């Protein structure tokens, strides 16, 4: 307060001085204006005189004689005037001409007068302002300073509702899960709304992290392919795209990992690309564990398998679920739902449903296809509650293999013509992601599941059909499924 008080005093002094200076200028202006006014009046009088002067030949006047005396005299040649033009120039002219000259001069005087009055007004305004300032700084008067603190952080947060992005955690499961969850949230926010809740720094860090993970994933993928070693670094806690990855990664858990991690890295756009990578690689492996972290139960996304066809994909939820799944599954590297988690508009959904053919992401015509059968199995229309999600997850697990097998079969078909062959995926996918965690066990475990698969088939198709109805699916899922099935098939072979 003391400081502010001092400040006020200083300000006050300054303002007072300013005011005084302004006042001076105003006075000066006023004096000038008065002189010009006088001049103008004189000219007016002269003009009048000239009007009447030529009326008579001569006038009787009292002529000033020295400083103290007058003499009677006559004014002659009344029409002849010697006019001072300025700068020691004179001109003899008639009264009329003199009048013209006077008129000309008058204009000039008026111009000057106007300019001066303008300046006067300006300075008067300034004086008034200075006065107000003075009163403000003195905390007197009725002036109140209104301030509004801008919180930058608020805007981003408000802008983006929390999206939980799945961040590809390259850390091994459990630890990763928790961290990832947070990161995912961060990332989501960052990705989606560029508002980092945690702040800009966290975003940058996350992105850097994502890049690292990406690289890691790639390396791992290669390794996994060779080793088929289910080492799951980070399941896709990061992105909802994990769903898609799930499918793709169904093939190999290891591959999932890399792909998954890579996916989270590119949460926003590259997600789709990642998936492709993952899908491709996944196919090579046997049934790896796929861990989808579905953050959100498709509360909004109802890829319902018949109940509702509303597709509301709430990424966040999927992601959360993804994370949960991941946590539960621990290591499985779920598919990185990179693509999925990014769904913000209906268009995104289609974007996420991408088939990976020949290493290229081909947009799927029908999102019903592919998506994880698992999802369809698990998710169903119920969707969206994390609790349900958990259950589904479990279900998903059990079905994962089934789906895997199923998907394998379908993969063969779908891979080529994904959109047409298998209709179900899309709706389920959302659901699946939201609640289904597809874990793929390593080869050995997959095999027995395969046998079990058939019985599950009948159920799956139903779902698939339902899903088809919804026609909403995460494209990513579809491609993933394909790969998964393929992988399973390959394994079987």
């Amino acid at each position, binding site marked *: 307060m003391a400081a502010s008080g001092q400040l006020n005093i200083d300000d006050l002094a300054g303002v007072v001085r300013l005011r005084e200076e302004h006042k001076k200028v105003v006075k000066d202006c006023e004096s000038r204006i008065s002189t010009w006014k006088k001049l103008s009046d004189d000219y007016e009088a002269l003009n009048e005189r000239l009007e009447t002067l030529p009326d008579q030949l001569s006038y009787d006047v009292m002529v000033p004689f020295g400083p103290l005396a007058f003499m009677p005299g006559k004014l002659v040649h009344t029409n002849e005037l010697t006019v001072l*033009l*300025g*700068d020691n120039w004179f*001109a003899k002219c008639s009264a009329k001409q003199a009048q013209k000259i006077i008129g000309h001069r008058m204009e000039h005087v008026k111009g000057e007068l106007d300019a001066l009055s303008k300046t006067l007004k300006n300075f008067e305004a300034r004086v008034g302002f200075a006065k107000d300032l003075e009163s403000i700084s003195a905390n007197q008067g009725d002036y109140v300073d209104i301030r509004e603190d801008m919180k930058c952080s608020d805007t981003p947060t408000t802008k983006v509702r929390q999206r939980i992005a799945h961040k590809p955690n390259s850390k091994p499961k459990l630890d990763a899960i928790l961290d990832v969850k947070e990161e995912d949230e961060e990332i989501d926010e960052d990705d989606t709304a560029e508002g980092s809740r945690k702040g800009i720094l966290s975003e940058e860090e996350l992105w850097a992290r994502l890049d690292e993970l990406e690289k890691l994933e790639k390396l791992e993928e290669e390794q996994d392919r060779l080793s088929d070693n289910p080492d799951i670094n980070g399941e896709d806690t990061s992105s909802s795209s994990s769903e898609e990855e799930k499918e793709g990664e169904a093939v190999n858990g290891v591959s999932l990992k890399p792909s998954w991690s890579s996916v989270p890295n590119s949460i926003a756009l590259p997600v789709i690309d990642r998936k492709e990578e993952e899908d491709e690689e996944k196919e090579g492996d046997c049934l790896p564990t796929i861990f989808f972290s579905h953050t959100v139960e498709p509360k909004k996304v109802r890829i319902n398998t018949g109940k509702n066809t509303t597709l509301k994909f709430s990424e966040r939820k999927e992601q959360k679920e993804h994370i949960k799944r991941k946590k539960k599954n621990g290591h499985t590297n779920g598919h990185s739902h990179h693509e999925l988690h990014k769904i913000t508009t209906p268009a995104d959904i289609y974007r996420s449903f991408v088939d990976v053919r020949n290493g290229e992401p081909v947009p799927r015509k029908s999102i019903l296809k592919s998506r994880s059968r698992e999802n369809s199995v698990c998710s169903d229309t119920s969707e969206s509650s994390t609790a349900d999600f958990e259950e589904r997850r479990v279900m998903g697990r059990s079905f994962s293999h089934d789906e895997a097998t199923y998907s394998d079969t379908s993969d063969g078909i779908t891979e080529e013509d994904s959109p047409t062959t298998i209709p179900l995926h899309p709706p389920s996918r959302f659901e699946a992601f939201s609640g289904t965690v597809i874990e793929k066990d390593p080869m050995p475990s997959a095999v027995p599941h395969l046998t079990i698969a058939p019985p599950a088939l009948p159920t799956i198709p139903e779902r698939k059909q339902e899903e088809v109805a919804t026609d909403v699916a995460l494209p990513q899922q579809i491609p993933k499924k394909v790969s998964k099935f393929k992988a399973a098939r390959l394994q079987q072979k």
Partner: protein
Amino acid sequence: MAELIQKKLKFEVEKYTQMQKDVSKSMSARQKLETQLTENNIVKEELDLLDSTNTVYKLIGPVLVKQDPDEAKATVSKRLDYINGEIQRYEMLLKDLEKKSDQQRELLASLQQEFQKAQGLAVGKA
């Protein structure tokens, strides 16, 4: 040490005041020229208003000398140009002087700082 700086400071201050005077001189000269400019402008216009029937006189000392109107006009125009040229010259001069005075001011400021430091040291020593 402090005394030395003090002397220096005084010298610089004198230089600065001199510079300021020069600046103000050239400023006033320029202002005079400006008034002359306006005046001559008015004269020119008024001469244009008049025709050649009137006689034009020029006051040279106590004498009014008759002048040819056209000649007068020409003279006035020439004078006008001359005045413009002078104004520009003075403006340049003014700029230079101002620059120099600024430099001088900075120098003074630095010297002052030094002086204060030296004084502080001296006080400390004492």
